[in-house]
C-alpha cells in the first residue's frame, strides 16, 4: 500500500491545468506526494508528464489550480525560488555546462541552492562527487564526459542544492544497462536518507524498482495510481500506452 495517504504530503497538486493554444496539456490533475516517498510518473508520449514537471519547477505557470510544497503555494513562483525552497530537477536531455569542469558545474548549481550562502562548498562537492562516483573526474570538462557520466553530473548538481524533493525527468533514457542499475542504487540510497523523489521514466522495470507508488497519466489527466504490479495489470493503462484505434 503506498504511504501517500497517511504520511504528511510534501507536495500537493490540486486541480492543476495548463493549456498551450488548443491543447490541454495538463487537465485538472490532483495528487499528493508523501515526504520521504518515491513516486513514479508514467504515461505514453504526450501524456503531459514533462509539462507537469515544468509546472512543479516553475518553468511554466499553471493556468489553473494550486501547487503546494511543504505547505507553501508555488504555482506562481520562478524556478530559482523553487530551487531555493528545496525542489531540484533534472532534465530529459541532460543539461550541463559543457565548457566548465564538473566541479564548476556543481558550483553554479550551489549558487542557486538552499545552502547558497554556506562556505562548505568544497566539502559538500567532494562528498557528492564521491556519491555519484565522479571523484576522479572533478576537474574534467563536463563536455568531455560520456552521456551517462553527464547524467551523473546533473544529479550531482541537483544534490548540491540540498533539495528535499527531486524531480527526475527520464533519469535513465539513453543510459547503458550497467549505469541504469547504478542510478537505481543511488536513488534508493537518497530515498533511504529521507529525500522525496518524483520520477518520470519510460523504463518500467527501473521505475517500478525505485518507486512502489506509480501514477499513470494519459492525455493530460491522471488515469490511475497504485503499486507497480497493479498498474502493470490494469487494462486501461495498457490501452493508454497503445493509443486509440
Amino acid at each position, binding site marked *: 500500500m503506498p504511504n501517500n495517504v497517511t504520511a504528511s504530503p510534501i507536495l500537493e497538486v490540486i486541480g492543476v491545468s495548463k493549456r498551450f493554444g488548443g491543447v490541454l496539456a495538463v487537465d485538472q490533475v490532483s495528487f499528493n506526494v508523501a515526504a520521504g516517498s518515491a513516486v513514479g510518473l508514467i504515461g*505514453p*508520449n*504526450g501524456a503531459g508528464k514533462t509539462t507537469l514537471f515544468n509546472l512543479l519547477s516553475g518553468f511554466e505557470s499553471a493556468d489553473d489550480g494550486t501547487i503546494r510544497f511543504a505547505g507553501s503555494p508555488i504555482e506562481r513562483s520562478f524556478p530559482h525560488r523553487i530551487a531555493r525552497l528545496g525542489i531540484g530537477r533534472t532534465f530529459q536531455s541532460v543539461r550541463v555546462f559543457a565548457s566548465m569542469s564538473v566541479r564548476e558545474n556543481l558550483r553554479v548549481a550551489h549558487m542557486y541552492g538552499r545552502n547558497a550562502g554556506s562556505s562548505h562548498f568544497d566539502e559538500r562537492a567532494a562528498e557528492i562527487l564521491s556519491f555519484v562516483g565522479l571523484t576522479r573526474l572533478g576537474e574534467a570538462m563536463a563536455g568531455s564526459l*560520456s*552521456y551517462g557520466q553527464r547524467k551523473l553530473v546533473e544529479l550531482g548538481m541537483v544534490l548540491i542544492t540540498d533539495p528535499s524533493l527531486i524531480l527526475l525527468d527520464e533519469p535513465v*533514457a*539513453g543510459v*547503458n544497462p550497467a549505469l541504469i542499475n547504478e542510478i537505481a542504487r543511488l536513488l534508493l540510497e537518497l530515498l533511504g536518507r529521507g529525500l522525496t523523489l518524483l520520477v518520470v521514466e*519510460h*523504463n*518500467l*522495470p527501473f521505475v*517500478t524498482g525505485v518507486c512502489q507508488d506509480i501514477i499513470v497519466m494519459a492525455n493530460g489527466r491522471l488515469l490511475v495510481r497504485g503499486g*507497480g*504490479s497493479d*498498474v*502493470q*495489470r490494469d487494462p486501461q*493503462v*495498457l*490501452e493508454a*500506452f*497503445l*493509443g*486509440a*484505434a
Partner: protein
Amino acid sequence: MAQLEAVALTAGYGGSTILNNVSITIASGCITGVIGPNGAGKSTLLKAIMGYIVPRAGAVRLDGDDITRLPTHERIRRGIAYIAQTRSHFPSQTVQENLRIGAYLVRDRAVRAARQAEIFRRFPILAERRRQPAALLSGGQLRMLEIGRVLMTSPRLIVLDEPSVGLSPALVDMVYGHLRELAAGGTTLLIVEQNVRKLLAVADFVYALENGANRFEGTPQALTATGVLANLYLGAGAA
C-alpha cells in the same frame, strides 16, 4: 515479394549501439508496421533504411540490390520516400513551392504538373491554400503537405516515422484514411508508430522491437493474441 529488406542491421551513434542485429522484410504493396517502446530503435532503423546513418553491420536491399552504402538522394531516386517524425516543411514557402521542392528530381514539367494536379485532387485543402505560406497551415494540413511533397517523386515505397504524432484523434483518422488509400493504389508503406492500435488497424504485417532487437513479427491479429504488447509497454510483470 520482398521489396525492401533490412538484414541483420547493427547501428548506433558514437559509442552507443542502438540496433542489434535487426532484420525486417517489407513486402511490395503492403503496409508494414514497426512498433516498440521509447528507445526500442525504431527511428534508428528508419534512418539506416534511408541512408541517414551507415550501419556498422548488416545490409539494406531494395528489389534485391544492396543499397546499404547508397546516399539518401540515390535511394529517393530509386523510389523510396521518407516522412520524418518532426516537421519538415519550408514554412516561408507557399504550399505550391513546398510541393515543387519535393519534385526536385522530376525534370519533366508536364509530369510535375500532372503529379501536382493529382495531389491537389487527393488533398483539396492544399489546392485551396496553394498560394499561402506553409507556416499558416494547421498540423493536419502540414501532414498532408508532407505526404503530398513526397508524392511528387511518385515513390513506390513511403517510409513514415510516427505519422500520428501531435495530431488530434480526428486528424489521425484522416491521415490514416489517406495512407490506406495510397496503399490501396499500390504504394508500399513502412510505418513506425507509437499509436499502436491505429497502426495495427491498418497494417498487413507488424514487427515489434525491444531494446534494439527483434521481439515479434507477424500479423496484427497474431500480435494481439500474444501477451507481447503488455510485456513490451508495461514490463515483464504485466498480464
